[in-house]
């Protein structure tokens, strides 16, 4: 046991030495189209490098869980999180804070979509008739694909989704939710509104077969979060400079990677509703 600890300590010391010139690292997972991540986000890294005068590197990750872990373990210092993953991350890293959100994120929405065989019509309230049909969420820790849809479902039916529907699945992705409902594999699904609208615009979805039957009330979603120790390590006021750089990002080529039209200021308190919902669903503790 002792030699394991010794080795760990030695390696840690060596690693500290190797990390002398500190690179500022960030990660981001866009809510749609995760192709060519490195190419696209390296441009964002270059932009931040110009503005911040430190070396900036983009770290590609696969899932929100991996992003939170990287943030917690200080493998990245800045991250573009979803609503829920941001809350998870800020709970794990003391003094970390939300800096900015997308213009669209202040009033984000989820759509409930249905296959035409259900004969459901768009309505202002979730129709009673969705009960006992099959239903798919997106990824398990997605705010727009799981957390908020489940919250509104429980509000409407006062029951867990498993009791409302005949079958509940987790497709793992918004695009796949659309594909599964379009093919009738699941009769209903909940999807991020911006992914849906992009898919409709590009003609990737047949709106005769699947349509939106309800949109949720709005809630806050994606945001940039920075670690609490950033100022200490990169110089006083560093977090403010990062925030400024994000807010002033106006090159459409950079913004479309997220995809957002612009970034606006955000703070931790804006995400209190998300935190509450996550706690009540047992996704946070």
């Amino acid at each position, binding site marked *: 046991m002792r030699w394991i600890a010794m080795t760990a300590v030695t390696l840690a010391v060596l690693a500290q030495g190797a990390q002398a010139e500190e690179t500022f690292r960030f990660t981001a997972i866009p809510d749609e189209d995760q192709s060519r991540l490195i190419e696209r986000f390296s441009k964002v890294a270059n932009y931040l490098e110009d503005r911040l005068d430190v070396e900036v590197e983009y770290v590609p990750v*696969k899932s929100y869980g991996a992003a939170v872990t*990287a943030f917690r373990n200080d493998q990245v210092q800045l991250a573009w999180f979803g609503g829920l993953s941001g809350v998870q991350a800020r709970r794990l890293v003391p003094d970390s804070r939300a800096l900015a959100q997308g213009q669209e994120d202040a009033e984000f929405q989820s759509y409930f979509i249905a296959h035409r065989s259900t004969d459901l019509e768009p309505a202002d309230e979730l129709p009673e008739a969705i009960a006992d049909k099959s239903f798919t969420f997106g*990824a398990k820790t997605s705010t727009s694909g799981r957390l908020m849809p489940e919250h509104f479902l429980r509000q409407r039916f006062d029951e867990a989704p498993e009791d409302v529907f005949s079958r509940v699945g987790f497709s793992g992705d918004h695009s796949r939710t659309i594909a599964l409902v379009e*093919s*009738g594999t699941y009769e209903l699904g909940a999807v991020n509104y911006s992914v849906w609208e992009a898919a409709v615009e590009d003609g990737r979805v047949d709106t005769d077969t699947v349509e939106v039957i309800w949109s949720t009330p709005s809630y806050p979603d994606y945001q940039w979060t920075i670690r609490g120790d950033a100022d200490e390590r990169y110089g006083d006021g560093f977090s403010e400079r990062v925030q400024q750089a994000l807010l002033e990002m106006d090159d459409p080529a950079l913004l479309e990677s997220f995809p957002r039209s612009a970034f606006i200021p955000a703070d931790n308190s804006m995400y209190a509703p998300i935190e509450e919902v996550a706690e009540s669903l047992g996704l946070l503790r």
Partner: protein
Amino acid sequence: MSLSAALPQRPRWFGGDALGPRLARHTLTLVALALLLLPLADLAVVTRDPWAEIARLAQGLAWPAWGAVETPLHALGLTIAVALWGTLAGVVLGFPLALLFARSRLVRAGCAFVRAIHELFWALLFLQVFGLSALTALAALAIPYAGIFAKVYAEILEETPRAPADALPLGVSRLVRFVYSELPLAWPRIAAYTRYRFECGLRASVLLGFVGLPTLGFQLETAFREGRYHEAGALLWLFYLLIASLPWWSQRRLVPVLLIGGAFLLGPWPAINGGLLWRFISQDIWPRPLLEGDWAGLLAWLAEVPDLAPAIGNTLLLGLLGTVGSLLVALVMWPLASRHFGNRATRLAGSGVLVFLRSTPELLLAFIFLLLLGPSMLPAWLALALHNGALIAFLVARHADSLTPGMAQLPASGRLAYELLPRVYPSLLALLYYRAEVILRETAILGMLGVATLGYYIDENFQYLMFDIAFLLLLVTAMLNIGVDALSRRFRPREAPLDVPGG
């Protein structure tokens, strides 16, 4: 003697201790058990209009978009490098353990434990500490492989003939005896098994991309998940070509070149943080009430754990169905790729189908069946059966190719039924029993279908960052796997020649 000679014995179907009837009994029991439990499985079929999506998928495979893949050569190189170094590290760790395997119960138990956890879950564990780094990837392969190598090498060494060792003069040291009389005899089989394991390593290395390590699987999973099938098609073809061309580039002489070249691709190396490591193993994976000695709190914590009984039931049921399905698939498919049947063209096609099925990630197969058949346990079952059945069929075909039929004048059907099948069946069943454990581990990664196996909950709790629950479920899974492994070892036909590697 006198009595049994006098009274003609009633013919005993499947009775007796001879190998044939015994294997037949095993097979029929397995099939009967599967049929008996079938009503418990959720096998609903819901089909509406899957064809648009299937057509998009097929188009993607037929017209791969090579240009859309970001740095394909790096991903390909890294996939090979991780597989090669991971396997090598597994050998280095596993070989000494193999020598202790027969003598130490602790070593046997330890090896059974590390093998019982899927590579992906090892990766998820190391990810928490080492981040997305080469160390996570290598450790995720090397640790379970060390357990597998220890077991298989030990079995191979155990089966080497004793005569050469007995012929050595008295007083020769243990080391000399090992180097001169045991190792040379076991070497060809050890080498063959290591090669086979390397191929498994390649597939596992691709899978590691699914949790975020930048191997081929990274882009494959995203492209496929987001429905960019032309890009996914390009990546899949790349992977098929990699597996199909294995015999050409995995030459012994090329291995050092690949190893050295691969070493440059491996990276990034993590800054190992002792504090993180310690926090993870001393706190993250244990329930907080337990660490605080709060027993009432521990009960509340236990209530948070997903219901174990249905999860274990689903895991075992899917494992059993997958195993029996693999048996049937293997029985039907192995002749397709064997030199004893058909002509050049059919064999080429047969081998192609087998390469396709055994190299296609189960997740992809499962998704196609999910579209076709709707959400239930059925897509998962079919995916497991086809993938593993094709793998066994391929190994059995290779085994059959090494046999010379004694009754060459028989027509093909007779050769199959009366000679080749009886000769390869013991090893087919042995492979199946080895594979049962793997199938059980693989039920884990089919959570997308909403089949609530143990693996489904493990994955879920990793995503919720509730490592304590994930760890508990991992322990349960490991125990289950160890149990199934012990069972399959007990029933594995001992007479089966082990030249055909399994596992």
